[in-house]
Protein backbone atom coordinates (compact mmCIF):
# COMPACT_ATOMS: atom_id res chain seq x y z
CA UNK A 1 0.00 0.00 0.00
CA UNK A 2 2.69 2.41 1.00
CA UNK A 3 4.66 1.33 -2.01
CA UNK A 4 1.71 2.07 -4.27
CA UNK A 5 1.29 5.58 -2.87
CA UNK A 6 4.98 6.16 -3.15
CA UNK A 7 4.92 5.01 -6.76
CA UNK A 8 2.02 7.32 -7.48
CA UNK A 9 3.82 10.32 -6.06
CA UNK A 10 7.03 9.58 -7.90
CA UNK A 11 5.06 9.20 -11.11
CA UNK A 12 3.28 12.47 -10.43
CA UNK A 13 6.54 14.30 -9.87
CA UNK A 14 7.87 12.86 -13.11
CA UNK A 15 4.77 13.77 -15.06
CA UNK A 16 4.70 17.30 -13.70
CA UNK A 17 8.34 17.75 -14.54
CA UNK A 18 7.72 16.66 -18.09
CA UNK A 19 4.56 18.72 -18.37
CA UNK A 20 6.44 21.77 -17.16
CA UNK A 21 8.53 21.46 -20.29
CA UNK A 22 11.73 20.12 -18.80
CA UNK A 23 14.03 18.13 -21.00
CA UNK A 24 13.73 14.37 -20.85
CA UNK A 25 17.08 14.40 -19.05
CA UNK A 26 15.89 17.13 -16.71
CA UNK A 27 12.71 15.20 -16.06
CA UNK A 28 14.68 12.13 -15.14
CA UNK A 29 16.85 14.15 -12.78
CA UNK A 30 13.88 15.79 -11.13
CA UNK A 31 12.25 12.40 -10.97
CA UNK A 32 15.20 10.84 -9.28
CA UNK A 33 15.23 13.70 -6.76
CA UNK A 34 11.55 13.13 -6.08
CA UNK A 35 12.05 9.43 -5.48
CA UNK A 36 13.55 10.35 -2.15
CA UNK A 37 11.76 7.86 0.11
CA UNK A 38 11.51 10.35 2.94
CA UNK A 39 9.82 12.95 0.79
CA UNK A 40 7.30 10.36 -0.31
CA UNK A 41 6.50 9.04 3.15
CA UNK A 42 6.35 12.50 4.64
CA UNK A 43 3.82 13.68 2.13
CA UNK A 44 1.59 10.71 2.89
CA UNK A 45 2.07 10.95 6.61
CA UNK A 46 1.30 14.64 6.75
CA UNK A 47 -1.66 14.64 4.41
CA UNK A 48 -4.99 13.96 6.07
CA UNK A 49 -5.63 11.07 3.68
CA UNK A 50 -8.55 12.32 1.56
CA UNK A 51 -7.16 15.81 1.16
CA UNK A 52 -3.92 14.37 -0.11
CA UNK A 53 -5.84 12.18 -2.54
CA UNK A 54 -7.89 15.11 -3.80
CA UNK A 55 -4.80 17.22 -4.28
CA UNK A 56 -3.22 14.33 -6.14
CA UNK A 57 -6.27 14.02 -8.33
CA UNK A 58 -6.46 17.71 -9.14
CA UNK A 59 -2.80 17.69 -10.14
CA UNK A 60 -3.29 14.61 -12.29
CA UNK A 61 -6.45 16.07 -13.87
CA UNK A 62 -4.39 19.07 -14.96
CA UNK A 63 -2.17 16.79 -17.01
CA UNK A 64 -3.60 16.57 -20.52
CA UNK A 65 -0.37 15.95 -22.45
CA UNK A 66 1.11 12.47 -22.45
CA UNK A 67 4.63 11.90 -23.73
CA UNK A 68 6.19 8.96 -25.56
CA UNK A 69 9.64 7.54 -26.19
CA UNK A 70 11.08 7.73 -29.71
CA UNK A 71 9.37 5.42 -32.18
CA UNK A 72 7.10 4.10 -29.43
CA UNK A 73 3.39 4.21 -28.73
CA UNK A 74 3.71 2.59 -25.29
CA UNK A 75 2.09 4.58 -22.49
CA UNK A 76 4.45 5.65 -19.74
CA UNK A 77 3.39 4.84 -16.15
CA UNK A 78 2.95 8.53 -15.30
CA UNK A 79 0.57 8.95 -18.24
CA UNK A 80 -1.53 6.07 -16.92
CA UNK A 81 -1.92 7.74 -13.51
CA UNK A 82 -3.32 10.88 -15.08
CA UNK A 83 -5.45 8.91 -17.51
CA UNK A 84 -7.03 7.02 -14.59
CA UNK A 85 -8.37 10.35 -13.30
CA UNK A 86 -9.55 11.41 -16.78
CA UNK A 87 -11.26 8.05 -17.20
CA UNK A 88 -13.14 8.54 -13.94
CA UNK A 89 -14.25 12.03 -15.04
CA UNK A 90 -15.28 10.89 -18.51
CA UNK A 91 -17.33 8.00 -17.12
CA UNK A 92 -18.99 10.47 -14.76
CA UNK A 93 -19.89 13.26 -17.14
CA UNK A 94 -20.14 11.36 -20.45
CA UNK A 95 -18.38 14.19 -22.30
CA UNK A 96 -16.51 13.78 -25.57
CA UNK A 97 -12.79 14.42 -25.97
CA UNK A 98 -10.37 14.42 -28.88
CA UNK A 99 -7.06 12.61 -28.51
CA UNK A 100 -4.56 14.42 -30.74
CA UNK A 101 -1.57 12.25 -31.63
CA UNK A 102 1.74 13.90 -32.49
CA UNK A 103 5.26 12.84 -33.46
CA UNK A 104 8.67 14.45 -33.74
CA UNK A 105 9.97 15.56 -37.12
CA UNK A 106 12.03 12.48 -37.94
CA UNK A 107 10.70 10.36 -40.77
CA UNK A 108 8.23 11.12 -43.53
CA UNK A 109 5.12 13.20 -42.93
CA UNK A 110 2.50 10.64 -43.91
CA UNK A 111 4.25 7.85 -42.06
CA UNK A 112 4.29 10.10 -39.01
CA UNK A 113 0.55 10.66 -39.45
CA UNK A 114 0.17 6.93 -38.92
CA UNK A 115 2.54 6.93 -35.92
CA UNK A 116 0.67 9.82 -34.33
CA UNK A 117 -2.56 7.90 -34.73
CA UNK A 118 -0.98 4.86 -33.10
CA UNK A 119 -0.18 7.00 -30.05
CA UNK A 120 -3.68 8.45 -29.95
CA UNK A 121 -5.12 4.94 -30.16
CA UNK A 122 -2.89 3.73 -27.32
CA UNK A 123 -4.45 6.40 -25.11
CA UNK A 124 -7.91 5.58 -26.42
CA UNK A 125 -7.44 1.88 -25.70
CA UNK A 126 -6.29 2.59 -22.18
CA UNK A 127 -9.30 4.83 -21.46
CA UNK A 128 -11.69 2.24 -22.89
CA UNK A 129 -10.11 -0.41 -20.65
CA UNK A 130 -10.90 1.87 -17.72
CA UNK A 131 -14.54 1.83 -18.78
CA UNK A 132 -14.87 4.95 -20.95
CA UNK A 133 -17.22 4.50 -23.90
CA UNK A 134 -15.43 4.52 -27.28
CA UNK A 135 -18.14 6.91 -28.46
CA UNK A 136 -16.70 9.57 -26.16
CA UNK A 137 -13.26 9.35 -27.73
CA UNK A 138 -12.01 10.49 -31.11
CA UNK A 139 -8.42 10.08 -32.23
CA UNK A 140 -7.06 12.71 -34.61
CA UNK A 141 -3.44 12.43 -35.67
CA UNK A 142 -1.50 15.55 -36.57
CA UNK A 143 1.70 13.62 -37.22
CA UNK A 144 4.62 16.04 -37.18
CA UNK A 145 2.48 18.98 -38.37
CA UNK A 146 1.90 20.66 -35.01
CA UNK A 147 5.11 20.55 -33.02
CA UNK A 148 5.01 21.92 -29.46
CA UNK A 149 8.67 22.87 -29.79
CA UNK A 150 10.36 23.79 -33.06
CA UNK A 151 13.96 22.78 -32.41
CA UNK A 152 15.62 19.70 -33.89
CA UNK A 153 17.40 18.85 -30.62
CA UNK A 154 16.48 15.86 -28.46
CA UNK A 155 14.75 18.06 -25.91
CA UNK A 156 12.40 19.66 -28.43
CA UNK A 157 11.68 16.38 -30.11
CA UNK A 158 10.78 14.76 -26.76
CA UNK A 159 8.19 17.50 -26.22
CA UNK A 160 6.68 16.80 -29.64
CA UNK A 161 6.14 13.04 -29.16
CA UNK A 162 2.84 13.41 -27.37
CA UNK A 163 -0.90 12.96 -27.22
CA UNK A 164 -3.01 15.95 -26.23
CA UNK A 165 -6.35 15.27 -24.60
CA UNK A 166 -8.59 18.10 -25.81
CA UNK A 167 -12.05 18.76 -24.36
Amino acid at each position, binding site marked *: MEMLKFGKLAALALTLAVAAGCSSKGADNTGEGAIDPNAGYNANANGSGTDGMLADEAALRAITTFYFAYDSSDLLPEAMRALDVHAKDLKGDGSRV*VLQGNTD*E*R*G*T*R*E*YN*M*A*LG*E*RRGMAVQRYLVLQGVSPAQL*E*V*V*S*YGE*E*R*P*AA*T*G*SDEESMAQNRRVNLVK
Partner: protein
Amino acid sequence: MTTLIRIALLGLLLLANAVHAADPLVISGGNDRAIPIAVVPFGWQGGTVLPENMAEIIGNDLRNSGTFEPVPAQNMISLPTQASEVIFRDWKALGAQFVMVGSIVPTGGRLQVQFALFNVATEQQVMAGNVSGGVEQLRDMAHFVSDQAFEKLTGIKGAFSTRLLFVTAERFSVDNTRYSLQRADYDGARAVTLLQSREPILSPSFAADGKRIAYVSFEQKRPRIFIQYIDTGRREQITNFEGLNGAPAWSPDGSRLAFVLSKDGNPEIYVMNLASRQLQRVTNHFGIDTEPFWGKDGQTIYFTSDRAGKPQIYKMNIASGAVERVTFIGNYNANPKLSADEKNLVMVHRQEGYAVFRVASQDLTRGTVKILTQTSLDESPTVAPNGTMVIYATRQEGRGVVVLASINGRVKIPLPIAAQGEIREPSWSPFLK
Protein backbone atom coordinates in the same frame (compact mmCIF):
# COMPACT_ATOMS: atom_id res chain seq x y z
CA MET B 1 -14.28 26.64 -39.53
CA THR B 2 -14.58 27.28 -43.23
CA THR B 3 -14.40 31.01 -42.51
CA LEU B 4 -10.79 30.39 -41.57
CA ILE B 5 -10.13 29.17 -45.08
CA ARG B 6 -9.59 31.56 -47.86
CA ILE B 7 -9.14 30.26 -51.31
CA ALA B 8 -7.04 32.76 -53.12
CA LEU B 9 -8.23 33.08 -56.67
CA LEU B 10 -5.62 32.34 -59.25
CA GLY B 11 -3.24 35.20 -59.73
CA LEU B 12 -4.59 37.08 -56.73
CA LEU B 13 -1.46 36.68 -54.67
CA LEU B 14 1.61 36.95 -56.80
CA LEU B 15 4.45 36.41 -54.40
CA ALA B 16 7.38 35.94 -56.70
CA ASN B 17 9.28 38.25 -59.06
CA ALA B 18 11.40 39.91 -56.41
CA VAL B 19 13.14 36.61 -55.78
CA HIS B 20 15.53 35.89 -58.60
CA ALA B 21 17.98 38.61 -57.62
CA ALA B 22 20.11 36.57 -55.22
CA ASP B 23 22.37 34.09 -56.97
CA PRO B 24 21.70 30.64 -55.58
CA LEU B 25 24.50 28.60 -54.15
CA VAL B 26 25.68 25.92 -56.52
CA ILE B 27 27.39 22.89 -55.12
CA SER B 28 29.01 20.60 -57.61
CA GLY B 29 29.18 16.96 -56.61
CA GLY B 30 29.68 14.98 -59.81
CA ASN B 31 32.86 13.50 -61.26
CA ASP B 32 33.05 14.43 -64.90
CA ARG B 33 32.41 17.96 -66.04
CA ALA B 34 29.15 19.42 -67.22
CA ILE B 35 29.14 20.64 -70.82
CA PRO B 36 30.02 24.35 -71.04
CA ILE B 37 27.36 26.31 -72.90
CA ALA B 38 27.17 30.05 -73.48
CA VAL B 39 23.71 31.57 -73.48
CA VAL B 40 24.41 35.10 -74.65
CA PRO B 41 22.12 37.86 -73.30
CA PHE B 42 19.30 38.21 -75.82
CA GLY B 43 19.16 41.38 -77.89
CA TRP B 44 16.27 43.72 -77.13
CA GLN B 45 15.10 46.51 -79.40
CA GLY B 46 12.38 47.94 -77.17
CA GLY B 47 12.65 51.09 -75.08
CA THR B 48 11.96 49.95 -71.52
CA VAL B 49 13.99 47.37 -69.62
CA LEU B 50 12.42 43.92 -69.70
CA PRO B 51 11.40 42.48 -66.31
CA GLU B 52 13.08 39.13 -66.97
CA ASN B 53 16.47 38.09 -68.34
CA MET B 54 15.66 35.26 -70.74
CA ALA B 55 19.27 34.19 -71.29
CA GLU B 56 19.84 33.90 -67.56
CA ILE B 57 16.68 31.82 -67.09
CA ILE B 58 17.71 29.53 -69.97
CA GLY B 59 21.24 29.18 -68.56
CA ASN B 60 19.86 28.30 -65.12
CA ASP B 61 17.46 25.75 -66.61
CA LEU B 62 20.26 24.01 -68.47
CA ARG B 63 22.47 24.07 -65.39
CA ASN B 64 19.69 22.62 -63.21
CA SER B 65 19.61 19.52 -65.42
CA GLY B 66 23.15 18.75 -64.26
CA THR B 67 24.23 18.27 -67.88
CA PHE B 68 25.35 21.80 -68.76
CA GLU B 69 27.39 24.55 -67.16
CA PRO B 70 26.52 28.04 -68.41
CA VAL B 71 29.40 30.43 -69.15
CA PRO B 72 29.02 33.51 -66.91
CA ALA B 73 27.89 36.54 -68.94
CA GLN B 74 30.69 38.72 -67.55
CA ASN B 75 33.29 36.37 -69.10
CA MET B 76 31.90 36.73 -72.59
CA ILE B 77 34.19 38.40 -75.12
CA SER B 78 31.47 39.32 -77.58
CA LEU B 79 27.70 39.56 -77.27
CA PRO B 80 26.20 38.39 -80.54
CA THR B 81 22.40 38.45 -80.82
CA GLN B 82 22.06 36.70 -84.17
CA ALA B 83 23.78 34.00 -86.22
CA SER B 84 25.76 36.38 -88.43
CA GLU B 85 27.42 37.98 -85.39
CA VAL B 86 28.80 34.79 -83.85
CA ILE B 87 32.62 34.71 -83.85
CA PHE B 88 33.49 31.11 -83.02
CA ARG B 89 37.05 31.75 -81.86
CA ASP B 90 35.66 33.89 -78.99
CA TRP B 91 33.71 30.88 -77.75
CA LYS B 92 36.54 28.44 -78.35
CA ALA B 93 38.72 30.71 -76.18
CA LEU B 94 36.17 30.40 -73.38
CA GLY B 95 35.92 26.64 -73.76
CA ALA B 96 32.22 26.76 -74.61
CA GLN B 97 31.03 23.74 -76.55
CA PHE B 98 27.74 25.36 -77.52
CA VAL B 99 26.59 28.94 -77.89
CA MET B 100 23.03 30.23 -78.00
CA VAL B 101 22.08 33.64 -79.28
CA GLY B 102 18.69 35.33 -79.43
CA SER B 103 16.83 38.56 -79.90
CA ILE B 104 13.54 39.95 -78.67
CA VAL B 105 11.58 42.33 -80.88
CA PRO B 106 8.33 44.11 -79.91
CA THR B 107 5.61 43.56 -82.50
CA GLY B 108 2.07 44.80 -82.01
CA GLY B 109 2.12 44.75 -78.20
CA ARG B 110 3.76 41.35 -78.12
CA LEU B 111 7.31 40.12 -78.05
CA GLN B 112 8.80 38.10 -80.90
CA VAL B 113 11.77 35.98 -79.79
CA GLN B 114 14.24 34.46 -82.28
CA PHE B 115 16.92 32.09 -81.09
CA ALA B 116 19.67 29.90 -82.53
CA LEU B 117 22.09 27.35 -81.09
CA PHE B 118 25.56 26.55 -82.48
CA ASN B 119 28.15 23.84 -82.00
CA VAL B 120 31.39 25.74 -81.41
CA ALA B 121 33.73 22.95 -82.57
CA THR B 122 31.96 22.31 -85.88
CA GLU B 123 30.78 25.92 -86.27
CA GLN B 124 27.43 24.50 -87.37
CA GLN B 125 23.96 25.67 -86.36
CA VAL B 126 22.34 22.98 -84.20
CA MET B 127 18.89 24.49 -84.13
CA ALA B 128 16.96 27.72 -84.56
CA GLY B 129 13.44 28.74 -83.68
CA ASN B 130 11.10 31.46 -82.57
CA VAL B 131 8.42 32.00 -79.98
CA SER B 132 6.16 34.93 -79.14
CA GLY B 133 4.15 36.12 -76.16
CA GLY B 134 3.37 38.98 -73.82
CA VAL B 135 5.84 40.58 -71.42
CA GLU B 136 4.32 38.52 -68.60
CA GLN B 137 5.23 35.39 -70.57
CA LEU B 138 8.98 36.03 -70.75
CA ARG B 139 9.68 33.26 -68.24
CA ASP B 140 7.39 30.87 -70.14
CA MET B 141 9.19 31.69 -73.37
CA ALA B 142 12.58 31.20 -71.74
CA HIS B 143 11.56 27.77 -70.37
CA PHE B 144 10.20 26.90 -73.83
CA VAL B 145 13.57 27.71 -75.43
CA SER B 146 15.34 25.67 -72.70
CA ASP B 147 13.08 22.69 -73.41
CA GLN B 148 13.82 22.89 -77.15
CA ALA B 149 17.58 23.21 -76.66
CA PHE B 150 17.76 20.50 -74.00
CA GLU B 151 15.90 17.98 -76.13
CA LYS B 152 17.99 18.82 -79.20
CA LEU B 153 21.26 18.39 -77.29
CA THR B 154 20.46 15.41 -75.09
CA GLY B 155 17.59 13.61 -76.79
CA ILE B 156 15.65 13.93 -73.51
CA LYS B 157 12.44 15.92 -73.43
CA GLY B 158 12.94 19.15 -71.47
CA ALA B 159 10.98 19.57 -68.23
CA PHE B 160 11.54 23.26 -67.65
CA SER B 161 7.98 24.35 -68.48
CA THR B 162 6.63 22.39 -65.54
CA ARG B 163 5.22 23.53 -62.21
CA LEU B 164 5.76 22.79 -58.57
CA LEU B 165 3.31 22.55 -55.70
CA PHE B 166 4.51 23.11 -52.16
CA VAL B 167 3.22 23.97 -48.71
CA THR B 168 4.40 26.87 -46.58
CA ALA B 169 3.93 27.12 -42.83
CA GLU B 170 4.41 30.40 -41.00
CA ARG B 171 4.31 29.70 -37.31
CA PHE B 172 3.40 32.34 -34.76
CA SER B 173 2.85 29.99 -31.79
CA VAL B 174 2.04 26.34 -31.13
CA ASP B 175 -1.66 26.93 -31.84
CA ASN B 176 -1.23 29.59 -34.47
CA THR B 177 0.35 28.67 -37.77
CA ARG B 178 -0.64 29.96 -41.18
CA TYR B 179 -0.43 27.25 -43.83
CA SER B 180 -0.61 27.88 -47.53
CA LEU B 181 -0.59 25.69 -50.59
CA GLN B 182 1.26 27.31 -53.45
CA ARG B 183 2.05 26.64 -57.06
CA ALA B 184 5.14 28.04 -58.76
CA ASP B 185 7.26 27.44 -61.84
CA TYR B 186 9.45 24.36 -61.32
CA ASP B 187 12.33 26.69 -60.35
CA GLY B 188 10.30 28.36 -57.58
CA ALA B 189 9.54 31.56 -59.50
CA ARG B 190 6.07 33.13 -59.79
CA ALA B 191 4.54 31.46 -56.73
CA VAL B 192 0.76 31.75 -56.48
CA THR B 193 -1.34 30.83 -53.43
CA LEU B 194 -4.00 28.19 -54.10
CA LEU B 195 -5.27 27.71 -50.55
CA GLN B 196 -4.68 29.24 -47.14
CA SER B 197 -5.64 27.75 -43.81
CA ARG B 198 -4.98 27.97 -40.09
CA GLU B 199 -4.92 24.17 -40.02
CA PRO B 200 -2.31 21.88 -41.63
CA ILE B 201 -2.24 21.24 -45.37
CA LEU B 202 -0.15 18.36 -46.68
CA SER B 203 0.63 15.86 -49.43
CA PRO B 204 -0.27 17.95 -52.50
CA SER B 205 0.03 16.30 -55.92
CA PHE B 206 -0.90 16.99 -59.53
CA ALA B 207 -3.09 14.76 -61.63
CA ALA B 208 -1.61 13.70 -64.97
CA ASP B 209 -3.79 16.30 -66.73
CA GLY B 210 -1.97 19.04 -64.82
CA LYS B 211 -5.35 20.67 -64.15
CA ARG B 212 -6.39 19.01 -60.90
CA ILE B 213 -4.54 18.66 -57.67
CA ALA B 214 -5.26 16.57 -54.59
CA TYR B 215 -4.16 17.30 -51.05
CA VAL B 216 -4.97 16.74 -47.39
CA SER B 217 -6.45 19.64 -45.41
CA PHE B 218 -7.25 19.77 -41.70
CA GLU B 219 -9.68 22.68 -42.16
CA GLN B 220 -12.46 20.61 -40.53
CA LYS B 221 -10.10 19.89 -37.62
CA ARG B 222 -9.58 16.45 -39.05
CA PRO B 223 -7.57 15.30 -42.07
CA ARG B 224 -9.72 15.16 -45.19
CA ILE B 225 -8.78 14.73 -48.84
CA PHE B 226 -9.75 17.38 -51.37
CA ILE B 227 -9.42 17.82 -55.11
CA GLN B 228 -9.02 21.33 -56.48
CA TYR B 229 -9.20 22.57 -60.07
CA ILE B 230 -6.24 24.88 -60.64
CA ASP B 231 -7.93 27.15 -63.17
CA THR B 232 -11.22 27.83 -61.40
CA GLY B 233 -10.28 27.14 -57.78
CA ARG B 234 -13.30 24.82 -57.48
CA ARG B 235 -12.88 22.22 -54.75
CA GLU B 236 -14.40 18.82 -54.03
CA GLN B 237 -14.13 17.00 -50.74
CA ILE B 238 -13.25 13.39 -51.54
CA THR B 239 -13.16 11.73 -48.13
CA ASN B 240 -14.91 12.08 -44.80
CA PHE B 241 -13.96 8.97 -42.85
CA GLU B 242 -13.10 8.62 -39.22
CA GLY B 243 -9.36 8.43 -38.57
CA LEU B 244 -6.58 8.98 -41.08
CA ASN B 245 -7.50 10.36 -44.50
CA GLY B 246 -4.14 10.84 -46.14
CA ALA B 247 -1.45 10.43 -48.79
CA PRO B 248 -3.59 10.90 -51.93
CA ALA B 249 -1.95 9.60 -55.14
CA TRP B 250 -3.40 9.93 -58.64
CA SER B 251 -3.60 6.94 -60.94
CA PRO B 252 -1.71 7.53 -64.21
CA ASP B 253 -4.95 8.14 -66.14
CA GLY B 254 -6.36 10.45 -63.47
CA SER B 255 -9.53 8.41 -63.00
CA ARG B 256 -8.66 6.95 -59.61
CA LEU B 257 -7.14 8.18 -56.40
CA ALA B 258 -5.24 5.93 -54.00
CA PHE B 259 -5.09 7.08 -50.39
CA VAL B 260 -4.86 5.95 -46.81
CA LEU B 261 -7.77 5.44 -44.42
CA SER B 262 -7.69 3.98 -40.93
CA LYS B 263 -11.46 3.62 -40.60
CA ASP B 264 -11.13 -0.16 -40.26
CA GLY B 265 -8.76 0.14 -37.33
CA ASN B 266 -5.31 0.68 -38.83
CA PRO B 267 -3.85 2.48 -41.85
CA GLU B 268 -4.70 0.71 -45.10
CA ILE B 269 -4.47 1.80 -48.73
CA TYR B 270 -7.70 2.26 -50.66
CA VAL B 271 -8.40 3.13 -54.29
CA MET B 272 -11.37 5.29 -55.20
CA ASN B 273 -12.90 5.49 -58.65
CA LEU B 274 -13.50 9.23 -58.86
CA ALA B 275 -16.46 8.98 -61.24
CA SER B 276 -18.44 6.41 -59.25
CA ARG B 277 -16.85 7.19 -55.86
CA GLN B 278 -16.57 3.44 -55.40
CA LEU B 279 -13.96 2.47 -52.82
CA GLN B 280 -11.70 -0.58 -52.97
CA ARG B 281 -9.42 -1.59 -50.14
CA VAL B 282 -6.13 -2.85 -51.59
CA THR B 283 -3.93 -3.63 -48.58
CA ASN B 284 -4.76 -5.87 -45.66
CA HIS B 285 -2.25 -5.90 -42.87
CA PHE B 286 -2.26 -4.89 -39.21
CA GLY B 287 0.88 -2.79 -39.70
CA ILE B 288 1.05 0.71 -41.14
CA ASP B 289 0.48 0.86 -44.90
CA THR B 290 0.82 4.34 -46.37
CA GLU B 291 2.30 6.61 -49.07
CA PRO B 292 0.97 4.89 -52.19
CA PHE B 293 2.59 5.72 -55.55
CA TRP B 294 1.28 4.35 -58.84
CA GLY B 295 3.24 2.54 -61.50
CA LYS B 296 2.52 3.56 -65.10
CA ASP B 297 0.52 0.37 -65.72
CA GLY B 298 -2.22 1.60 -63.37
CA GLN B 299 -2.08 -1.81 -61.64
CA THR B 300 1.05 -1.55 -59.52
CA ILE B 301 1.17 0.50 -56.34
CA TYR B 302 4.39 1.10 -54.43
CA PHE B 303 3.86 1.93 -50.77
CA THR B 304 5.50 2.21 -47.36
CA SER B 305 4.76 -0.42 -44.72
CA ASP B 306 6.17 -1.32 -41.32
CA ARG B 307 4.91 -4.91 -41.60
CA ALA B 308 8.48 -6.16 -41.13
CA GLY B 309 9.07 -3.92 -38.11
CA LYS B 310 10.66 -0.86 -39.70
CA PRO B 311 9.26 1.12 -42.61
CA GLN B 312 10.24 -0.40 -45.95
CA ILE B 313 8.89 -0.07 -49.47
CA TYR B 314 6.70 -2.73 -51.02
CA LYS B 315 4.87 -3.03 -54.27
CA MET B 316 1.57 -4.68 -54.95
CA ASN B 317 -0.58 -5.63 -57.86
CA ILE B 318 -4.01 -4.24 -57.04
CA ALA B 319 -5.79 -6.81 -59.19
CA SER B 320 -4.14 -9.92 -57.74
CA GLY B 321 -3.29 -8.50 -54.33
CA ALA B 322 0.24 -9.93 -54.56
CA VAL B 323 2.70 -7.98 -52.41
CA GLU B 324 6.47 -7.95 -52.84
CA ARG B 325 9.10 -6.20 -50.73
CA VAL B 326 11.26 -3.81 -52.76
CA THR B 327 13.80 -2.24 -50.36
CA PHE B 328 16.26 -4.18 -48.22
CA ILE B 329 19.15 -1.76 -47.71
CA GLY B 330 18.78 0.65 -44.78
CA ASN B 331 16.55 0.58 -41.70
CA TYR B 332 14.07 3.21 -42.90
CA ASN B 333 12.82 3.54 -46.46
CA ALA B 334 9.66 5.51 -47.15
CA ASN B 335 7.79 7.84 -49.49
CA PRO B 336 8.50 5.94 -52.74
CA LYS B 337 8.54 7.86 -56.05
CA LEU B 338 9.30 6.15 -59.35
CA SER B 339 11.52 7.78 -61.94
CA ALA B 340 9.83 8.47 -65.28
CA ASP B 341 11.37 5.36 -66.89
CA GLU B 342 10.47 3.29 -63.80
CA LYS B 343 14.06 2.06 -63.55
CA ASN B 344 14.76 3.84 -60.28
CA LEU B 345 12.87 4.29 -57.05
CA VAL B 346 13.54 7.57 -55.28
CA MET B 347 12.77 7.51 -51.55
CA VAL B 348 13.55 8.77 -48.07
CA HIS B 349 16.30 6.53 -46.74
CA ARG B 350 18.12 5.99 -43.48
CA GLN B 351 21.30 3.94 -43.52
CA GLU B 352 21.91 1.22 -40.97
CA GLY B 353 23.64 2.74 -37.96
CA TYR B 354 22.80 6.34 -38.89
CA ALA B 355 20.28 8.78 -37.45
CA VAL B 356 19.94 10.98 -40.53
CA PHE B 357 17.34 10.78 -43.27
CA ARG B 358 18.44 11.29 -46.85
CA VAL B 359 16.98 11.05 -50.30
CA ALA B 360 18.26 7.98 -52.11
CA SER B 361 17.63 6.22 -55.37
CA GLN B 362 17.41 2.46 -55.75
CA ASP B 363 18.16 0.81 -59.07
CA LEU B 364 15.17 -1.51 -59.38
CA THR B 365 16.99 -4.01 -61.58
CA ARG B 366 20.24 -4.29 -59.63
CA GLY B 367 18.92 -3.41 -56.19
CA THR B 368 21.78 -0.98 -55.54
CA VAL B 369 21.11 2.20 -53.55
CA LYS B 370 22.68 5.57 -54.32
CA ILE B 371 22.37 8.37 -51.78
CA LEU B 372 21.51 11.65 -53.51
CA THR B 373 21.61 14.17 -50.64
CA GLN B 374 24.02 14.99 -47.84
CA THR B 375 21.99 16.77 -45.19
CA SER B 376 20.13 15.21 -42.28
CA LEU B 377 16.37 15.67 -42.51
CA ASP B 378 15.88 15.31 -46.23
CA GLU B 379 12.38 14.27 -47.24
CA SER B 380 9.48 14.54 -49.69
CA PRO B 381 11.44 13.82 -52.88
CA THR B 382 9.64 14.58 -56.14
CA VAL B 383 11.07 13.65 -59.52
CA ALA B 384 10.92 15.77 -62.69
CA PRO B 385 8.71 14.17 -65.35
CA ASN B 386 11.81 13.58 -67.51
CA GLY B 387 13.72 12.01 -64.60
CA THR B 388 16.74 14.36 -64.76
CA MET B 389 16.11 16.32 -61.55
CA VAL B 390 14.68 15.80 -58.11
CA ILE B 391 13.36 18.40 -55.68
CA TYR B 392 13.22 17.62 -51.97
CA ALA B 393 12.60 19.28 -48.64
CA THR B 394 15.27 19.73 -46.02
CA ARG B 395 16.27 22.08 -43.20
CA GLN B 396 18.85 24.83 -43.42
CA GLU B 397 19.69 26.82 -40.31
CA GLY B 398 16.54 25.57 -38.63
CA ARG B 399 14.25 26.55 -41.49
CA GLY B 400 12.44 24.28 -43.92
CA VAL B 401 13.60 24.82 -47.51
CA VAL B 402 13.29 22.95 -50.78
CA VAL B 403 16.32 22.02 -52.84
CA LEU B 404 16.64 21.10 -56.51
CA ALA B 405 19.24 18.46 -57.30
CA SER B 406 20.23 16.97 -60.62
CA ILE B 407 19.97 13.18 -60.64
CA ASN B 408 23.64 12.98 -61.69
CA GLY B 409 24.55 14.75 -58.44
CA ARG B 410 26.31 17.76 -59.99
CA VAL B 411 23.87 20.44 -58.91
CA LYS B 412 22.13 21.18 -55.62
CA ILE B 413 20.35 24.52 -55.40
CA PRO B 414 17.96 25.76 -52.72
CA LEU B 415 14.98 27.11 -54.66
CA PRO B 416 14.62 30.88 -54.19
CA ILE B 417 10.98 30.85 -53.17
CA ALA B 418 9.71 34.10 -51.66
CA ALA B 419 7.55 32.70 -48.87
CA GLN B 420 7.24 33.38 -45.19
CA GLY B 421 8.18 30.56 -42.84
CA GLU B 422 8.91 26.97 -43.74
CA ILE B 423 8.68 25.59 -47.24
CA ARG B 424 7.92 21.90 -47.51
CA GLU B 425 6.37 19.06 -49.49
CA PRO B 426 7.39 19.93 -53.03
CA SER B 427 5.46 18.05 -55.70
CA TRP B 428 6.39 18.20 -59.38
CA SER B 429 3.77 18.52 -62.10
CA PRO B 430 3.67 16.22 -65.11
CA PHE B 431 4.56 17.62 -68.55
CA LEU B 432 1.97 20.33 -69.24
CA LYS B 433 0.26 21.03 -72.55
